[in-house]
C-alpha cells in the first residue's frame, strides 16, 4: 500500500462523517453515563461507588446476572449452531431460497408481531374440569393437554358397569337430548335462533351428546343452548342408576368415584369439628390442623381402611358407615376423579422454564441472521476441497467437522461475537413478554426500569449501563485480537 501524505487528510474526509455521528450519538452519551454513574439519583451529588454497590447487590440485579449468563450460553450456542446447520443443509437442496427465507422471516417481524405470535404458542388457559373442559389457544398447551387428556364420562360409565352398576350409556345420551332439544325450540321461539339453525343442531344432537360423553365439548361456534346443564343432567342420570342399587352399596361407588366418598367424610368431619370448637371441646388450632390433614387421611382410609390416630378426630367411628351409605355421586366428585390428565403448563410464569421459553423466542428470531452470514462464507469455500474429500470417501460428518468448520472459523468467530454482544444487551423480548417478572429479569431491563420506571434513578441506571458495557468488553477484546491477527496476515 502506498503511503502518501495526502492519505492522512483524505482519511479524515472518508471517516469524518462516521466519527462525528458516532461521537454525538454514542460517545458523548457514554461519557455522560459514566459521569452519572458516580452521582446520585438526580445527577447532583457525587456518591462514589454507591450505585455500583447497589447494582451488584440488589436482588433483582443478581437475578439478572444469572439470567444473562443463561442467555449467553444457550442463546449463542443455539443461534450459531442452528444457523450453521441450516446454512450447511440448505446449501445442498434445490429449494434453498425458500428454506432460507423461512428461517430468516422472523427477523423481519417486529417485536409487537413476535410477542403476539409466541402468545399463541405459550398461552395458558385454565383447563376447566373433565365435565366442562376448557380450550387452550396456545399451541404447546394444546399439545400437552391433548396428549394426555382427562378421563371421560364414558370411562366412568364403563367402570361402573364393570362393577355391576348398570348405567346405560344411551340413557345418559337421551337425558342430554331431553334437556337440549327443548332449549333449542325455546330459543327459536324467543328469536335467538332461526328454524334452520335449530334443525341442523337437532340433527347433530345425538352425535354431539355422544361425543360429549367421550370428553369432547361441542364447538363453541355452534349455538347450543343448554350446554352448561349437560354435566348436571348426565350426573343425575348416573345417580338414577346408582339409586337402583341396594342400600349400603357405598363401597362400590367409592371404588369408581372415590372423591364422592372422600367429600362425604370431609363434610361430616368438618361439621363435627365446628360443633366441637363451638362447644369448647376442642381448640380452634387443633381443629384447623385436623382440617388440613382431613382430605389425605380420608383418602387413605378409603384405600386401606386405616383410621387416623391422635386427638381431635370427631367422627372416625362413623366413617365406615358414611362410606357404606354413600348413594350418589356429585359433579364435583366426578370431576376430581376423572381429572387424571396433564395440566397445562405456565410457560411464561413458571420459574426456570420461562427463561428457556424466552430464549427460544430469541433463537427463533436470530438464527436467520447467523444463517445468512455463515451461508455466505460457506459458499466461498472452494468446491474442490469438498470434492476431493468426497472422492477420498469421507462421509458427511467427517467433511463437516474436518473441512467445513475449520474453513469457517473466522466467520464463526465474527458471528459468535456478534451474538454475544446482542445477547448481553437483550431487552425487547423480555420486556414485551414478562417485563422481567417471574424470575426472568435481565440487565438491560433493569437499566430501563431504573431509568424510566418512574423513580428516575439515573445513578443506578447509569451504573448498570456501565457494568453492561464492561461485561461486553472481553468479547470486543477477543474480536479485536482476531482482527489484529487478520491484519498481520495481510
Amino acid at each position, binding site marked *: *500500500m502506498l503511503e502518501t501524505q495526502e492519505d492522512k487528510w483524505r*482519511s479524515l474526509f*472518508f471517516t469524518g*462523517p*462516521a*466519527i462525528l*455521528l*458516532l461521537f*454525538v*450519538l*454514542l*460517545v458523548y*452519551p*457514554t461519557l*455522560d453515563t459514566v459521569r452519572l454513574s458516580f452521582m446520585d439519583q438526580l445527577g447532583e451529588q457525587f456518591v462514589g461507588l454507591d450505585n455500583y454497590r447497589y447494582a451488584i447487590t440488589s436482588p433483582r440485579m443478581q437475578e439478572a446476572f444469572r439470567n444473562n449468563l443463561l442467555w449467553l450460553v444457550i442463546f449463542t450456542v443455539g443461534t450459531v449452531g442452528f444457523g450453521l446447520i*441450516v446454512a450447511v*443443509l*440448505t446449501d445442498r437442496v434445490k429449494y*434453498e*431460497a*425458500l*428454506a432460507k427465507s423461512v428461517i*430468516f*422471516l*422472523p*427477523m423481519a*417481524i*417486529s417485536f*409487537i*408481531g413476535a410477542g*403476539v*405470535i*409466541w402468545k*399463541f*404458542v405459550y398461552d395458558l388457559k385454565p383447563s376447566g374440569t373433565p365435565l366442562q373442559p376448557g*380450550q*387452550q*389457544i396456545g*399451541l404447546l398447551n394444546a399439545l400437552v393437554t391433548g396428549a394426555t387428556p382427562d378421563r371421560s364420562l364414558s370411562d366412568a360409565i364403563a367402570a361402573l358397569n364393570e362393577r355391576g352398576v348398570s348405567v346405560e350409556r344411551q340413557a345418559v345420551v337421551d337425558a342430554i337430548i331431553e334437556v337440549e332439544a327443548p332449549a333449542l325450540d325455546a330459543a327459536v321461539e324467543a328469536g335467538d335462533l332461526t328454524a334452520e339453525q335449530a334443525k341442523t343442531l337437532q340433527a347433530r344432537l345425538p352425535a354431539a351428546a355422544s361425543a360429549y360423553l367421550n370428553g369432547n365439548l361441542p364447538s363453541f361456534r355452534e349455538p347450543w343452548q343448554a350446554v352448561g346443564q349437560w354435566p348436571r343432567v348426565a350426573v343425575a342420570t348416573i345417580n338414577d342408576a346408582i339409586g337402583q342399587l341396594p342400600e349400603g352399596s357405598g363401597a362400590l361407588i367409592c371404588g369408581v368415584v372415590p372423591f364422592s366418598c372422600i367429600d362425604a367424610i370431609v363434610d361430616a368431619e368438618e361439621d363435627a369439628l365446628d360443633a366441637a370448637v363451638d362447644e369448647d371441646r376442642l381448640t380452634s388450632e387443633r381443629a384447623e390442623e385436623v382440617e388440613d390433614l382431613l382430605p389425605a387421611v380420608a383418602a387413605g382410609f378409603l384405600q386401606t381402611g386405616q383410621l387416623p390416630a391422635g386427638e381431635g378426630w370427631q367422627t372416625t367411628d362413623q366413617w365406615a358407615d358414611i362410606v357404606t351409605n354413600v348413594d350418589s355421586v356429585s359433579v364435583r366428585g366426578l370431576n376430581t376423579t376423572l381429572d387424571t390428565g396433564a395440566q397445562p403448563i405456565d410457560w411464561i410464569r413458571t420459574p426456570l422454564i420461562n427463561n428457556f421459553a424466552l430464549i427460544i423466542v430469541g433463537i427463533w428470531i436470530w438464527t436467520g441472521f447467523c444463517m*445468512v452470514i455463515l*451461508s*455466505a*462464507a460457506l*459458499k*466461498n*469455500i472452494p468446491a474442490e476441497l469438498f470434492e476431493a474429500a468426497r472422492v477420498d470417501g469421507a462421509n458427511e460428518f467427517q467433511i463437516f467437522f474436518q473441512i467445513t468448520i475449520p474453513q469457517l472459523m*473466522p*466467520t464463526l468467530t*465474527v458471528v459468535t461475537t*456478534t451474538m454475544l*454482544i446482542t445477547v448481553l444487551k437483550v*431487552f425487547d423480548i423480555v420486556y414485551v413478554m414478562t417485563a422481567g417478572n417471574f424470575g426472568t429479569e435481565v440487565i*438491560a431491563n433493569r437499566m430501563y426500569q431504573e431509568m424510566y420506571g418512574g423513580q428516575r434513578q439515573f445513578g443506578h441506571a447509569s451504573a448498570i*449501563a456501565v457494568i*453492561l458495557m464492561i461485561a461486553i*468488553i472481553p468479547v*470486543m477484546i477477543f474480536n*479485536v485480537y482476531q482482527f489484529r491477527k*487478520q491484519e498481520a496476515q*495481510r
Partner: protein
Amino acid sequence: MTTAATVTPKADPRVSGSVLERTNWRRMFERIPLHFSVILLMLIWIVPTFGLLISSFRPSQDITSTGWWTVFQSPLEFTQFTLQNYDTVLNNPNYDMGGAFRNSLIIAIPATILPIMFAASAAYAFSWMKFPGRQGLFVVLVGLLVVPLQMTFIPVLRLFNNLGVTNNPNFPYLSIWIAHAGYGLPYAIFLLRNFMGSLPREVFESAFLDGASHFTAFTRLALPLSVPALASLAIFQFLWVWNDLLVALIYVGGGRYAPLTYALSGLVNSLGQDWHLLTAAAFVSIALPLIVFFSLQRYFVRGILAGSVKG
C-alpha cells in the same frame, strides 16, 4: 524409467446405462435424512407465524376462545374466516395508516442509506488507507457496539433540542435520520471493513500504480465489488428501522409524522383491549419488509461473501 500404465476408465453407468442404472439410488436414499431435516426445521420455524396468519383471519371471539388449528377441523366452512381484523386495522378512524406507512418509508429510506454510505467510506479508509491511529480508532468505533441505546436518548435529545434539530417544522425527520444513522454505524463499519479488507489486494495495487486516487478507487472499485455486502447490510438496517418503535417515539413522537409501528401500537388501548387486532397488524407491517427481502434475497442465497476472510 517410468512405465506408462494404461488405465482404461471404467464405463460410468451414470452416463451410459439404463434409467435404473443411471438413477443414483444410494444418493437419493442418503438424501432422505437431509430433506427430512431441512423440512423439519422449516416447519418448526414457520408454524408460529403460520398460526398468526390463520388467526388474523378469524373473528375476535374465536381468537380468544379456541386454538387456531381448530379451523382445520372444518376447513371449508368459510364463515369461520373474516376480513374484519384487516378492515379495522387498515381503515382505522383514529390512525391514518396510509400516512403512517408513508412516514415509515420517509424515515426508513434515508435511515438505511445514510449509515451505509458513511460506513462504506469509513470502512474503505480503514481497509485501504494508512493513517495514524487507524487500528485504535477502528477498535473504538466498533467497540461502541456495546452501548445500550436507551442510555443515549436523554443526552442526545437534549442536544438536539438545544440545536433546534427536533420539532423543526421544516425538517421534521432530521433528528431521527441522524439518530438512526449514528446507531447503525458501528455494526455497518464492522461488517464492511471485514468485507472490504478481504477484497483482492492486487486490484487496488494496480489501480494505485495506475495513478488512481483513493476517491476513484473507492467509487469505481470498492463500492461495486462490495455490492453484496452492501445489500445484506441494507436489508438488516432497513428491517431494524422499519420495525422500530422506541427510537421513533423519542425522536419523532406521535402525531402526523409518526411511523407505522406507532399507529399499529395504538390499536390496542391503554388497558390492552383489542389485542386481537395485532394479528392483522403484524402482517400489514411485514408486507413491505417481505418485498424488500425477496427482491434482495438473491444476495443472500447466491451467498456472496459478507464478512469472512478468504483462505
